[in-house]
């Protein structure tokens, strides 16, 4: 087995790289596009004249003018100032379900770049088949009756759920009366935010200190004839699994409301429990988390939303169907909430996820859950042994696939808090951790989620680095507070400006306007 080694002498590249606009020299070009030959010119005329006026810019775009070499150097430098996705110990991004994304799937996704969603259905039967079959997998995994793959991410799927709930109560003539949704403080924030966007009021439950999950009694106080639905994440952000979830569902459904299960991070339960058996009306998966496809800048997201039979008629259009001979797009849903995004899904993500499931098989999916939980149990033991670390709520009880820890004790003792430690982690060449959604109900929080793709050494490395930093905090708190010391960029010069709309600038144009007056 590989040996644990903390990278004590790590140092990140620091290029002090200018913004690309600052490298710009008027007239400089990376590629000189050749003029068309006179013959072509004569025949085709000025093709730009055929562009509709509404599509033409009034002014030339302000682009940096820069040579190829400089562009390559610039982006190489920037890439050296990151730790990279998929190439690092990412177990620390709790709630994100960061796992290794197999390269083969990226290759496969490259094979469909020529397909356009406006092509005739008959010319993309393979792609539709993959969509249809992946939906079938999700139905098996969750027990739901029908899925849409149209939403472009987790929150988008949850918003779609809220829209379907609105349509459902409207069809029953109860929408005006049912204007509240219930969620919990440790459910994902989109479980409150997206129903609010859809026009619902939000009622939030707090957990019981001892069990770490809300009491049924609290839910009963919240449920009434005004309840439209419950939106709940399980296991919650704390990593605690609500074993009474079926009773929650029953209580809500008895009041005539619907139940939505947020399964953005389903890593701890694949093949173990299903939303259907808990009684839920709907659930969703973040395909780019649980199903092995990359997050963020490495690829687009995808949120798969599943519903039970009584809600199928409200799903977005089109759905992908099979008539026994061919696959086709079905727009014939008069009660559909309409489209929530163009076309029928994020095709490359669906393809990668389909491939991921096919490689693992049913037994493999279950193994994913088992190893994720095992990894988490092992890491929890290691991390809790570090003096200064605590776990709020349900002390001594095992979490599922992630844990929200805290540094309350260390902070009280040394003044070094979670943000300080987070910055110091970068000095050891591994990813800093995710603290918590806001507000910080657990003070000085950090959240670790060691998915199935990490090795024992990865887990030990992370715990060892945290332990080392806690020791540093006791020896020299100012040193840790002043960290990072070996990263590409150390501190934000004026952190208060991040909070100030007059100062923050996320584009070059905004920067010039706000700072170069």
């Amino acid at each position, binding site marked *: 087995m590989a040996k644990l080694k903390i990278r004590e002498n790590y140092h990140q590249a620091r290029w002090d790289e200018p913004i690309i606009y600052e490298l710009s020299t008027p007239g400089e070009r990376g590629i000189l596009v050749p003029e068309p030959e006179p013959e072509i010119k004569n025949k085709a005329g000025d093709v730009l004249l055929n562009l509709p006026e509404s599509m033409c810019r009034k002014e030339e775009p302000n682009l940096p003018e820069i040579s190829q070499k400089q562009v390559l150097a610039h982006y190489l430098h920037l890439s050296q100032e990151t730790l990279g996705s998929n190439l690092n110990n990412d177990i620390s991004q709790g709630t994100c379900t960061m796992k290794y994304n197999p390269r083969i799937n990226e290759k496969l996704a490259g094979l469909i770049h020529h397909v356009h969603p406006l092509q005739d259905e008959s010319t993309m039967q393979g792609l539709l088949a993959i969509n249809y079959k992946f939906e079938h997998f999700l139905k098996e995994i969750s027990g739901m009756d029908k899925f849409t793959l149209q939403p472009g991410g987790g929150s988008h799927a949850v918003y779609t759920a809220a829209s379907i709930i609105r349509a459902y109560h409207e069809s029953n003539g109860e929408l005006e009366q049912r204007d509240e949704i219930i969620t919990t403080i440790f459910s994902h924030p989109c479980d409150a935010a997206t129903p609010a966007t859809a026009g619902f*009021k939000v009622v939030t439950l707090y957990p019981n200190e001892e069990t770490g999950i809300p009491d049924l009694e609290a839910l009963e106080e919240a449920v009434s004839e005004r309840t439209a639905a419950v939106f709940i994440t399980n296991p919650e952000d704390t990593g605690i699994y609500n074993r009474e979830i079926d009773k929650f569902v029953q209580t809500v459904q008895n009041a005539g409301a619907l139940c939505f299960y947020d399964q953005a991070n389903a890593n701890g339960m694949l093949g173990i429990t299903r939303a259907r058996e808990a009684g839920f009306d709907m659930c969703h998966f973040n395909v780019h988390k649980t199903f092995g496809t990359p997050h963020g800048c490495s690829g687009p997201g995808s949120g798969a939303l599943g519903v039970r039979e009584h809600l199928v008629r409200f799903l977005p259009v089109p759905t992908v169907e099979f008539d026994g001979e061919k696959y086709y797009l079905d727009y014939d849903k008069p009660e559909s909430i309409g489209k929530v995004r163009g076309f029928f899904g994020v095709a490359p993500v669906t393809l990668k996820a389909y491939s991921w499931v096919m490689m693992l098989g049913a037994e493999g999916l279950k193994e994913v859950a088992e190893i994720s939980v095992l990894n988490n149990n092992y890491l929890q033991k290691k991390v809790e042994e570090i003096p200064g670390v605590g776990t709020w709520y349900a002390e001594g009880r095992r979490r599922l696939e992630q844990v929200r820890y805290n540094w309350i004790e260390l902070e*009280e003792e040394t*003044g070094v808090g979670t943000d300080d430690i987070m910055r110091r982690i970068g000095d050891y060449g591994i990813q800093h951790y995710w603290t918590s959604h806001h507000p910080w109900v657990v*003070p000085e929080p950090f959240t670790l989620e060691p998915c199935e793709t990490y090795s024992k050494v990865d887990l030990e490395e992370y715990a060892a680095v945290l332990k080392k930093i806690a020791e540093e905090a006791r020896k020299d708190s100012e040193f840790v507070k002043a960290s990072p010391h070996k990263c590409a960029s150390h501190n934000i010069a004026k952190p208060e400006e991040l909070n100030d709309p007059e100062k923050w600038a996320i584009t070059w144009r905004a920067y010039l306007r706000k700072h170069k007056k």
Partner: protein
Amino acid sequence: MKLGFIVNPIAGMGGKVGLKGTDGMEILEKARRLGAYPEAPKKAKKALKLLTPLINDIEILTYPGKMGEDEAIALGFNPKVLGEKKDIVGPDDTEEAARKMLDMDIDLLLFAGGDGTARNIYNVVGDKVPVLGIPAGVKIHSAVYANHPRSAGEVALKYLKGELTRIREAEVMDIDEAAFRKEQVTAKLYGYMKVPFEQQLVQSLKAGRPEEEESARDSIADRVVAEMKPDVLYIIGSGTSTRPIMEKLGLPNTLLGIDIVKNKKIVASDVSEREILEHIEGRKAKIIVTVIGGQGYIFGRGNQQLSGNVIRKIGIDNIRIIATKNKLVSLGGQPILVDTGDDKVNNMFNRYMRVVTSYNEEIIYKVKGL
């Protein structure tokens, strides 16, 4: 930059010998006999030590001996000492020191003590200059104190360096020590002082920025006003969270007292328990209350007028609790507390209740009657 620095050297002495505060010379003697020793100077030094990087940039104005001079000199500062040295110091000296410093245009007043000290400072300073408390007393109900001495030093350092520019209003609260020593708790909200704001480091505002808090309170007030029904008496509790309700109605507000509103017009201001009982007799009424202070009371601290009798007459279902999310988070998972002095009424509150946290949001939170 000019920093006022006041230490109440006897603050906190009662705590370790179980005396619940040291307000009063007699009690102080008793504390000394029981073996209490001054805690505050040590804690004040812990905070002031963090300002040593500014030793050449700030002028410290302080009072003689243990009231600040000794602590400052021990850390290598060269403070300007006001006032005469006395063997025994008391609340008058704290107030006199604050008054002299105020006259000399200080930028920040850093003081060490407990709730009694905060009150003395408040009597003189009010909201004229920003202050920051180093927690050293037995009773720390006031939100003008930092979480611990070190964080007081950190906030002061950042404020004096100009890295913190934002200010929030923080509660000055105190309980009657004589009653407290007899196991009766009566707390009062005395007012608000201006405190430099730093996320994480100042009591009871662990996550919220002042502007967030303000907009959350505004949104709550919109909800309360929108829900108001004709001919119902609305009994508006004290505190900064209820203030925007009165502002939205264009009515005068009693920050530290109770007002009654009907049909969006003022019926009575700053009412006593007796007056409330008279007004609600035979009428439908609702109470709007917020969580006061860092310890999470809705009744029994700062609003004794809303007595057990009043609550019983109005009914628990006619109580609307309002609080910003950050205020609830700052309770650290502890329940909202009720201490009306009436056990039966207190017991009615042992349940989950709805708390309005914005126009469209409520939190179901545990309430506990003492």
